């Protein structure tokens, strides 16, 4: 006899959530046309175009997807597609599938011109409308500003002038690369100009560090494990050290680096984001604004440096000639393209305090530099020593405060140092490490940060992007240091390339603490 089965899980469609998305790893993304300004530049070639190809390969792009490149160079659609194909073949993390690539390239167009020219935006408008017409529906539009920062306000205002900041029946978003300003004043001015054209919810300020799995794991580590939260405060934590060390020189980036310096390059954005991830309160929900609200609270709680305190809480230096990994390297001032009297720091270390209930009195040390002994990005959380020690220290390394190390690179993982008894008849203690390496426990390879961020921007998820008040709060911390350093003539302290950094950094440490070895 025939039987009838009634499906129990089904929802009534058309009245809320899409019942077909449950259980799917990849949520639908609305059909989109992506416009890249600066489409022939280095970032687009090395990161954006390969990321888009990889999303296409995995079937993660929206079901209708078009790409328009724009930059100064004169070229045809076909020539741009050819250049894009070359970049994808060279820089994609997986070999390109010819058939997928062919279809992707078929939906690419190009508009040439300088970013202040009206014809660029007229051309874009025509192409965008054409794609909508072909699809029979208004497609979402994402404008990706992968240009030099001086063009950000120009492009944004031109988009507004040509009515491209809004489109009936679809969402329009703008993705803005870093740096978002080079001073607090610039950041505020840029925010003002950008927000006069786009609403904040349309804006996606990229800090690609936030797209890294390792940074996102920090939140999982803190908020998915009950073990650490009880000690995650000033009662148990003695200090926090955040290190982003590189063992490379500036290479060929003198033009950019000498204008930026270590503080702007890494501290103002990436390292303050790490600090926020360590210090923020748990958000009620894992949603963009709730997370960003918590981060802003942390940034606003940081005691702001003043012209008078900068010398006590910040140290800068430049690398001098030395050897890295057995190879001799030049000093910063001898690098091609660097003025011989440059005052740009290649090393920055700062001591910050977060003046709130959880963290009052706990120093947060941030340091970053080029040409250091090793490439490492980590957060070291040192707990307070035990109040009373029953063991004799004699004949052993002795008891050390527990240290929790969260490593972002090179080997993402967590390590906890513990005191353990040395085998033998005497009670002698030495520190041992309990280690967890992400690579041993997950099969998946982390996607490139840009893949995640481009997809999130197309989907409208701003969790991993920086909000206007967040950027300004970051600058409020760094700007007084930038101003003081710019007003103070050199020469800067030097540190030998391939070492731990300048001895001057030691003066930042309180209560006899020492920097963790890089």
């Amino acid at each position, binding site marked *: 006899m025939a039987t*009838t089965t009634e499906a129990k899980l089904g929802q009534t469609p058309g009245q809320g959530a*899409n019942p*077909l998305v449950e259980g799917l790893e990849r949520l639908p993304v609305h059909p989109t046309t992506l416009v890249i300004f600066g489409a022939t530049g280095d970032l687009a070639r090395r990161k954006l175009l390969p990321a888009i190809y990889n999303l296409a390969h995995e079937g993660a792009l929206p*079901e209708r997807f078009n790409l328009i490149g724009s930059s100064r160079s004169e070229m045809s659609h076909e020539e741009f597609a050819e250049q894009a194909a070359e970049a994808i073949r060279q820089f994609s993390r997986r070999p390109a599938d010819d058939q997928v690539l062919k279809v992707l390239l078929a939906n690419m167009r190009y508009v040439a011109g300088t970013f202040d020219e009206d014809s660029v935006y007229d051309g874009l408008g025509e192409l965008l409308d054409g794609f909508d017409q072909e699809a029979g529906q208004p497609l979402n539009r994402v404008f990706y500003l992968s240009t030099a920062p001086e063009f950000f306000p120009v492009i944004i205002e031109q988009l507004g002038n040509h009515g491209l900041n809004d489109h009936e029946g679809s969402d329009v978003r703008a993705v803005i690369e870093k740096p978002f300003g080079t001073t607090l004043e610039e950041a505020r001015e840029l925010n003002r100009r950008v927000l006069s054209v786009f609403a904040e919810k349309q804006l996606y300020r990229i800090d690609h560090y936030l797209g890294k799995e390792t940074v996102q794991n920090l939140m999982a580590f803190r908020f998915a494990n009950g073990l650490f939260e009880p000690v995650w405060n000033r009662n148990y934590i003695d200090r926090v050290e955040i290190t982003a060390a590189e063992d490379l020189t500036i290479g060929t980036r003198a033009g950019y680096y000498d204008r930026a310096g270590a503080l702007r390059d890494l501290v103002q954005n990436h390292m303050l984001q790490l600090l926020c991830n360590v210090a923020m309160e748990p958000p009620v929900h894992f949603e963009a604004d709730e997370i960003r609200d918590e981060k802003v609270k942390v940034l606003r709680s940081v005691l702001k440096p003043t012209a008078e305190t900068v010398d006590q809480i910040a140290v800068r230096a430049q690398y001098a000639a030395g050897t890295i990994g057995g190879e001799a390297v030049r000093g910063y001032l001898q690098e091609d393209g660097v003025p011989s009297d440059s005052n740009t720091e290649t090393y920055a270390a700062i001591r910050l305090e977060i003046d709130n209930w959880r963290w009052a009195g706990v120093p947060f040390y941030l340091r970053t530099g080029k040409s250091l002994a090793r490439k490492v990005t980590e957060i070291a959380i040192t707990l307070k020593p035990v109040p009373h020690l029953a063991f004799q220290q004699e004949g052993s390394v002795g008891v050390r405060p527990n240290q929790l190390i969260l490593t972002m690179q090179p080997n993402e993982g967590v390590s906890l140092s513990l005191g353990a008894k040395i085998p033998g008849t005497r009670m002698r203690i030495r520190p041992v490490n309990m280690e967890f*390496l992400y690579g041993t*426990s997950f*099969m998946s390879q982390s996607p490139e940060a840009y893949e995640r961020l481009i997809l999130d921007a197309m989907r409208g998820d701003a969790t991993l992007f920086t909000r206007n008040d967040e950027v300004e709060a970051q600058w409020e911390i760094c700007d007084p240091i930038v101003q003081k350093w710019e007003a103070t003539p050199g020469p800067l302290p030097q540190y030998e390339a391939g070492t731990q950094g300048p001895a001057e950094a030691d003066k930042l440490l309180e209560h006899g603490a020492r920097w963790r070895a890089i």
Partner: protein
Amino acid sequence: MATIDTVWRARDTKPGDIDAALRASLAQIHRDNAGYVPARVLNLVCVVDKQYSGEIANRLRRVGRYHPSRTIVCSVDPKRTTLDAVATIAAPSEVREGEIGLLRETVVVECGTQHLKNLDRIVDPLVVTDLLTCVWAPHGHGEAVDSLLDLSQIVLLDSVDEPDPAEALHRARDLSEQAYVVDLAWLRSTPWRERLAATFDPDTVRPELNTIDGITIRHHPESTAAALLLVGWLASRLGWRIDPLFAGRGGVLEGKVRARRQDVKVRLEPDAKQHVRGLAGLTISTASGRTYSLDRGPGGLRAHFENRRGETRDWTILGASRGEAGILGEGIRQALLRDGTYGPALACANGLLR
């Protein structure tokens, strides 16, 4: 990536000896170079016919980055009465200073049919404790799978392996009651499910889910189970009432299921031109006279839309084929995730069969 293999072999051996040999080898490798550390993700227990074990080994080699950390292959030679074993620890040939090299272990145990009923006694000492264990028996050996259910949390299967789709889906349902089932036939349909979800995702189109009045699925002639699972998925997500389908000419299955306001004609057609397992295409029609079709094509799925006025649109939805090795890799990855929609889809798919 080039690897250095540490190999241990023994004839007429015992599981305890294999385990001891693995432990000793791992400790030695780590002592020689502290950068080598064992991966600890998943135990995969494969029960295979000895004559096809090479083919299975090849499939496992090609799963890309989704390697289980310890693979235990029980290679069944019907007449064998003793156990022979080869344990291999593969390490990347180069580990730069400051980096780690992941070790992956493979144990091949040659056993006989007589061992299958209590295969758990052989496998239990060999799995890494505290890791999830997944069982995969691509050549049947139901008895062996049953014996391993107590020590494993996941069963990997492929519903299209079984010639009779009804038997395949019943077996999957039975196993689902005891373990988490990862069905490769279900995973092959993921891009199709994603695209259907995307098609009906815009607020303006979503109400049309209520008006679907026909679905035709074209499939590889031996992949009826995959087509049934896709209809089962739609039925379970959209609350359709299921009636069994009827067998027509040429292996076609057809019939009607009931949506809230209308009947939905269902037709499952074998497509002789489809050379790879799984689905070849599908067409969904709605009461408003619209049809949405998806078919395999170069560079992705070829989409076709048509409305009552005869207006049409065609485009390609980008995506590369994962290939059979990619599907197996995806199966291994899915063993660590949980998809709550397979069970209800499977229940509905079973309901579509008499």
